[in-house]
């Protein structure tokens, strides 16, 4: 039985025990607890500066009321970026290629932003369904379109993350098997494919970080609209 292309996305099992839990807990293990010392060691200093800078950056456009979301957004970002980057190591399993996990991130958080908007400022929240300056005949159509776009947001968030990472992993697998196969047949072409593979790996590193950031950024935008 040759492995199909999508077998890398199956949940790993070992002696009947699903290893998904270990893959998901991995980011928590990699970030040590910050200490109260004034002068920290290098890793804690790097971790602190990244987290604080990211929190400041993401909270800039938000009202003071939305600053309660600081911890959630920062934790989400750290989690996603670590899960994505760990998945680029050989033989590891990337939980964010699984659609249910990403939908589990996207739907509750999106729903929270919508409900916060409807509860605190219902007029403004509903007013977002009609952009300013639309001509009168277009109003009914546009409201329907904007409602649909509102409801598509969680699916877009989840599927974007899943598709980007899964596609990247698939490409890596295809290119690497092509390179291995071509090593016997046509060696110069194998060098070419390995070059493309090197470039693709750099792209994948960037995509891993960027997709995590985009997820959190869009969520903060939805929050900004609604607070």
């Amino acid at each position, binding site marked *: 039985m040759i*492995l199909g292309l999508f077998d890398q996305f199956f949940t*790993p099992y070992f002696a009947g025990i699903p290893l998904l839990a270990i893959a998901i807990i991995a980011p928590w293990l990699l970030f040590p607890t910050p200490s109260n010392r004034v002068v920290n*060691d*290098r890793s804690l200093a790097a971790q602190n500066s990244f987290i604080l800078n990211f929190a400041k950056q993401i909270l800039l456009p938000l009202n003071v009321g939305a600053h309660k979301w600081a911890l959630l957004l920062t934790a989400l970002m750290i989690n996603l970026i670590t899960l994505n980057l760990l998945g680029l190591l050989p*033989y590891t399993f990337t939980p964010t290629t699984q659609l249910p996990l990403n939908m589990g991130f996207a739907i509750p958080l999106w729903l929270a932003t919508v409900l916060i908007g409807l509860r605190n400022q219902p007029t403004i929240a509903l007013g977002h369904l009609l952009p300013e300056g639309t001509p009168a005949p277009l109003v009914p159509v546009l409201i329907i379109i904007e409602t649909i776009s509102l409801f598509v947001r969680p699916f877009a968030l989840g599927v974007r993350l899943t598709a980007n990472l899964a596609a990247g992993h698939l490409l890596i697998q295809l290119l690497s098997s092509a390179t291995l196969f071509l090593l016997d047949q046509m060696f110069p072409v194998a060098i070419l494919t390995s070059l493309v593979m090197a470039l693709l790996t750099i792209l994948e590193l960037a995509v891993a970080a960027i997709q995590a950031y985009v997820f959190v950024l869009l969520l903060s935008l939805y929050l900004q609209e609604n607070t």
Partner: protein
Amino acid sequence: MADRAVPVVEKRLMEVKLGELGTWVGGRDFTPNGMISSVRKGYQRYLNKYIHVKKGGIGGLSMVLASYVVLSYVWSFDHIKHDRMRKYH
């Protein structure tokens, strides 16, 4: 020869003589609390030795990542072994 005798169970592993190994393992704390506390102590020992030092290098993190890769290989071997390059599959 002036040291007091230490009970076998309380010695560190490297100081236990081979003949006393059975007694040592038998006397360890295998309750859930004991096992969890030993995992936490091990985690803290690794952190204090390799990460929380003034000029920690890349080795501290790399050892963790390398062991994660090796463990993932071991865990997925049963699934991956079907992908070996054979003339007849």
